């Protein structure tokens, strides 16, 4: 497989997420999007790269920083944007918002806002898949901060003990809110934590989408072959503040600048240019198409209806006949 055979598609997918979130930040200033908004800007290579290794039958479980994963998974941008607005046409009918994107059709299981809380859910999905003989993988995305929680350790142990088909994707962006990794972990080589549970684990450059894809393919291949859970530590960086409320005073401008020089979109663009796979015209074409899609999504969200308040109590309990 040529590493960049798929390169233009990867680039386009990353640009699409980047521009979508840039628009979200603007819409937040305009008070169209409210509450907490956690941008994935700088980390797009991970969601995009890992998704290449998944089939439509595989499952995804993510955090509150999940817009990129949702888009990369193929959830309709209109419905994602409408959910950010809180409209009836959104993925959760406006009940979830930016932190709680869910989509059963694409097996996208959130959008979970309690740090570490979704790791056991991922192992549970994998357990059910195995019990019912579905040979699929569950990819679980979480941050470096989640590694400190008990739920992380309980889940990794059980997943390894029971050899569950989970791909643990640790998005190590070096900070959990304002807490630098060195201030949170006695052992900062996070792959070693997974290895201590006898889970194959290794670090990967999370700014290199091709490397991400390659690692994810290797891991999912092994999981599908029955080799149990795998863990990849993707080394990355968030270019923006933790959320729209974070003044971002805990890291130096220089540090942010250094990482920005390894912007995953720039890295891939340069590489593809070098190979002659893209030129200015191609890039402009991508930007134009992406902008049109985002304009359409914002217009869709804007013109969508609010969920009627009469339905407030809908979905508190199941509507299925019991």
């Amino acid at each position: 497989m040529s590493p960049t055979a798929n390169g233009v598609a990867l680039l386009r997918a990353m640009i699409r997420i980047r521009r979508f979130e840039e628009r979200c930040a603007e819409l937040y200033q305009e008070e169209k999007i409210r509450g907490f908004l956690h941008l994935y800007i700088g980390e797009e290579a991970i969601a995009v790269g890992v998704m290449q290794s998944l089939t439509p039958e595989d499952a995804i479980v993510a955090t509150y920083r999940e817009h990129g994963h949702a888009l990369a998974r193929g959830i309709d941008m209109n419905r994602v944007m409408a959910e950010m607005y809180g409209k009836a046409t959104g993925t959760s009918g406006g009940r979830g918002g930016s932190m709680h994107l869910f989509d059963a059709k694409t097996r996208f299981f959130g959008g979970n806002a309690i740090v570490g809380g979704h790791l056991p859910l991922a192992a549970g999905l994998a357990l059910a898949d195995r019990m019912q003989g579905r040979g699929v993988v569950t990819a679980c995305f979480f941050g470096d901060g989640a590694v400190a929680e008990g739920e992380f350790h309980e889940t990794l142990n059980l997943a390894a003990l029971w050899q569950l088909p989970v791909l643990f994707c640790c998005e190590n962006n070096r900070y959990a809110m304002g807490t630098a990794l060195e201030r949170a972990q006695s052992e900062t080589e996070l792959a070693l934590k997974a290895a201590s549970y006898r889970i194959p684990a290794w670090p990967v450059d999370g700014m290199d989408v091709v490397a991400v894809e390659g690692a994810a393919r290797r891991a999912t291949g092994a999981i599908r072959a029955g080799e149990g859970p795998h863990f990849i530590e993707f080394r990355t960086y968030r270019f923006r503040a933790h959320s729209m409320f974070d003044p971002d005073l805990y890291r130096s401008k220089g540090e942010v600048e250094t990482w920005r020089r390894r912007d995953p979109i720039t890295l891939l663009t340069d590489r593809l240019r070098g190979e002659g796979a893209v030129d200015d015209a191609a890039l402009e074409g991508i930007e134009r198409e992406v902008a049109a899609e985002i304009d359409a999504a914002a217009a869709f969200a804007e013109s969508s209806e609010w969920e009627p308040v009469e339905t407030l109590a809908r979905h508190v309990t199941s509507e299925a006949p019991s």
Partner: protein
Amino acid sequence: MSTVTYRDALNQALKEEMQRDDRVFLMGEEVGVYQGAYKVSKGLLQEFGEMRVVDTPITELGFAGIGVGAAMVGLRPVIEFMTWNFALLAIDQVVNAAAKLLYMSGGQFNIPIVFRGPNGAALQLSAQHSQAFESWLAHIPGLKVVSPGTPRDAKGLLKSAIRDDNPVVFFEGEMLYNTKGDVPDEEYVIPIGQAELKREGDHCTIVTYGKSALMAVQVADQLEKDGIRVDVVDLRTIRPMDVAAITASVRKTNRAVVLEEGWEVCGVGAQIVDHIQRDCFDDLDAPVIRVHQADVPMPYAKNLERAAKPDVAKTIAAVKKVMYLPD
């Protein structure tokens, strides 16, 4: 008197108690270098250093329990939960350890610890970030549960909580941090377990606490324009509850509305209504009405969230209903 925000009032309480007693220390996520997720601990790391302002990784269960251990041997930890939603991960240590070690040890070990942080809904933070947990913890013998609504009460009660030899659960409000009020310049404490009449009137009683006390005062001010005079009983402490203050008011007004942020079923309001029916049965001119959050996880959408939350209009409607007045 000075005009102080609720946030600064809490900050003053922490600072004064840390100056007064070197056994007091603060521990939690982002309390130090970040100066507090909601800036309640601003400046404390600089004044007291890393030994007494302890940043933790995201490990709620661990640091809550470590606090309990330190309290068993005489330190006086103040444990900050970034919000009470995340304290759910630590509830084992609050309920199974802090609340009952004194009893299980036959009185040998006091647990002088404070668990504090913001509670209840802010604005459009959705279901996992918009929950009020007073009734959960008020259910537990061995805990004291405090929920102040004003800067003055917040400061005076936090000082009492830190000095108390028992575990105290201290509920703040995300939406309260920026609110302002008069705070005495001189040293003072407010005893745990004492309600305060925030407005006086003889037509109807509103019993409430925490953030809802502000709403109740607005309700009283608005109703006063229609000639309706409301007693606002701000409990300030949920456990132990100042039942005498409730009954004194209801015996005067003969009507009561109970207002709380949380859900109805097995809520704090149910306990309040029970005290009223037991002690004021013959005084009541109408059934007590409760105002609370709709029985749903908090939705994100603005219109749904508004419909789910108690508000001034809903509370006014409830007062009119117990007074058999048209809306």
